[in-house]
C-alpha cells in the first residue's frame, strides 16, 4: 500500500533529513518511533504530500505522491489519505456532522448522511452530530478527529502523535480505536510518535535515529 524509497528533505543546509524506505501492506499497520526533532512530522507531511521531498519516491497504492502537484495532489490526498493530528482541529463554524460532510465533499466523495452516522456510532459519538466542535469534551474531540480521518475511507491513515497528551489507559484505548477503524475501512495505518508505550501494541515498528537512518525492528 505504502512504499517509500530513499526519501530526503532539507529545510536548509544545516537541517537535512534522510529517510530510508518504509513499506506497509494493505490493511496492516506500522509504528514509526523517534525522538523530538528527528523529523517525524516532516516524514508524515512528506507522505501526505503536504511537503515535497528533495529526493525519493512515495508510492501510495501505486501512485507516486512526490510527482503529483497542485490540484491533482490536493484531490489525491483528499480521497486517499486521512490524517489524525496531535491536537484535534475542526472547522469551528460547522457542527461535527457538517465537518464530516465537508470532508467528504473535499475528498470528492458523494454526500452520505447514513455513512456519517455509522462512523460516528462506531466512535461513540452518536448524539453529538449537531454539536459544535467547541462543545465536545477532550475525549470526544479526540474521537471526532479520528472520525474526520476515516470518513472518506482512505487507503492510508496517518496519525501524528495521537497519544502524546493521554494517560496510559486512554492511550491504549485510542490506539485500539484507530486500529479498529482502520480495519473496518480496510486501510493501512501509520502512527508516528515518540510515545514508547505504543511499542507493545504493534508488531512492526521502525525507529528514526540521528544518523539519518531508520532502524527496522520486529518483535
Amino acid at each position, binding site marked *: 500500500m505504502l512504499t517509500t524509497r530513499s526519501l530526503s528533505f532539507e529545510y536548509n543546509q544545516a537541517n537535512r533529513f534522510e529517510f530510508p524506505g518504509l513499506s506497509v501492506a494493505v490493511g496492516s499497520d506500522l509504528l514509526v518511533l523517534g525522538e523530538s526533532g528527528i523529523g517525524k*512530522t*516532516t516524514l508524515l*507531511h512528506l507522505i*501526505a504530500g*503536504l*511537503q515535497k521531498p528533495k529526493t525519493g519516491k512515495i508510492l501510495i497504492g501505486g501512485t507516486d505522491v512526490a510527482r503529483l502537484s*497542485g*490540484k491533482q495532489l*490536493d*484531490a489525491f*490526498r*483528499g*480521497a486517499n489519505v486521512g*490524517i489524525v*493530528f496531535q*491536537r484535534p*482541529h*475542526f*472547522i*469551528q*463554524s*460547522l457542527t461535527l456532522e*457538517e465537518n464530516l*460532510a*465537508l*470532508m*467528504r*465533499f*473535499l*475528498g*470528492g466523495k458523494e*454526500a452520505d448522511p447514513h455513512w456519517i452516522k455509522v462512523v460516528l456510532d462506531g466512535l461513540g459519538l452518536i448524539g453529538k452530530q449537531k454539536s459544535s466542535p467547541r462543545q465536545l469534551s477532550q475525549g470526544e474531540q479526540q474521537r471526532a478527529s479520528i472520525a*474526520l480521518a476515516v470518513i*472518506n475511507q482512505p487507503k492510508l491513515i496517518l496519525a501524528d502523535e495521537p497519544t502524546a497528551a493521554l494517560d496510559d489507559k486512554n492511550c491504549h484505548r485510542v490506539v485500539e480505536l484507530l486500529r479498529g477503524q482502520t480495519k473496518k475501512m480496510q486501510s493501512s495505518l501509520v502512527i508516528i510518535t515518540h510515545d514508547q508505550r505504543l511499542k507493545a501494541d504493534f508488531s512492526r515498528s521502525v525507529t528514526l535515529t540521528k544518523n539519518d537512518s531508520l532502524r527496522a525492528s520486529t518483535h
Partner: protein
Amino acid sequence: MTIFRLGIKNVIAKPLSTGLSLLLLSLGVGLISLMLHIDRHLREQMSSNIRGIDMVVGAKGSPLQLILSAVFQVDVPTGNIKLAEAENLLRNRLIDYGIPLSYGDSYQGFRIVGTDERYPENYSMRLAEGSLWSQSMEVAIGAAVAERTGLKLGDKFQGSHGLSEGGHVHESEDYVVTGIFEASGSVVDQLILSNLESVWDIHAPHAHEEEEHGHKEGEGHEHEEGGSHEHEGHEHAEAEEHSHEAQEHAVGEESDHGGDDREITALLIKFKNPLGLVQLPRMVNENTNMQAALPNYELNKLFSLMGIATTTLNLVALIVILVSGISVFISLYLSLRERTYEMALLRTFGASRGQLLGMVFQEGLLIAFSGFLLGLVFSRLGLWVVSLLLKAEYHYDFSQTGLVAGEGYLLLVTVLIGFLSALLPAISVYKIDISKSLSDA
C-alpha cells in the same frame, strides 16, 4: 456541505464583525440610494411643475425667488407689477399667452391665488366636484387643501392676510368653495384658486369695513370693465369674462378712476416661438420695471446648488462605504489569522488553493452584496418616511420606489469594495504553507 455553504457559515459564525460591516455598508448604500431617489423625485416634480411655462414676469428682485414664488408657490413673491404694464407686454407677438397670478391672502397656510382658468388648464387639472369660480370670492380648491382643511363644496371661509398662517383675517369677506380639483401631484393641489377680482376686491384701498359686500364687489368690477357696464358684477355670465376683459380693457380705458392702479403679482408666459426665449427676457429686464425669469434656467441653477449638497452627502456616504470595506477587510484578515489552521486542515483534506481563494472572495462579496441589499431596504424605508412627511406637508407623491440607474453603479462600487477587501486575505490564503501552519498550531 460544500465550500460555498462553508463560506456562508463562516460569515454567519461571527455575527458581531459581520454585523458591523453590514451596518456600515448598508448605511452608506442606503444614504446614497436615498439621495438618488430624492434627487430624482425633486427633479421630476419640479420639471412637471414648469411645464407650459417658458418665462415668468414679476417685480424686480431675485429671479430664483420669482420662480419659486410664482411657479412652485414656496417663496414669498418679489412684489407686485402694474397690470397695465403686464398687459402691454402681452401684446408682444412672440407671446402666445400669459397667465396672471395675484397673491395676497391665505387660508390655514394655503395660498389663495387669483388667476384665470388657463392656470388650472395648464396643469391639466380636472374637477372632482363642482365647477370653477364664476364670480368674485368664489374659489376652486386643490385636493390637498380639501383634505387638510376639510372644506367642502359650498363651504364659506375667511382668508387671512399674508401668505402664512396668523395674518390679519378679512372678516368682512367670505370665500365660497365652488369646486374641488382632483389630486394631480402638481403644485395646484396646494392652492386655493379664485379669479383676479377676488384679490383686488379684498385689498381695494377704499374698501371700508362698513361698506356692504355688494358695493365693494361692484367697485371691483367697475375697475375691470372700465365702467362700461352697470353694477352687475354678481351675474355669472359677465363674471366669467372678467379675466380676459380685464387684460383687454384695462389698458387705455382707465379714465374713470384716474389711472389703473390694479396690480398682479406675476405673469406666467408661454412663447409663441422659440425666438421669444432670445428676445423677451432681455427686453423685459432692460426696458420695463418688471423682471423676467426663465424657469428652466433658474431650475438648473437651483439643481446645481442642490448638486453641491448632494455631492457632499454622497461623498460622506462613500467614505462610510469605504470604511465598511476596511471593516470587512479587517474582519476577514483577523479571522483568517485565527483560521490559518482551519485553512491548512481544509487543504489537508483535499481542498485546492483555488477553492479556498474562492471561499475568501465569497465571504467578502457575500457581505458586500447583503450590505447592498440591506442598504436598499434602508433607503426604501427612508423614502417611505420622507414620503409620509411630504404627503402630509405638500401632498407630493413619492411612492415610486423602483430601481434607478444610479443604484446599478452603486452595486458595482459595493461589489468592487467587497472584492478589494477580500483581495489581501485571499492572497495570504493562497500562499498558505500547509505543513508549516499545521506544525505551528
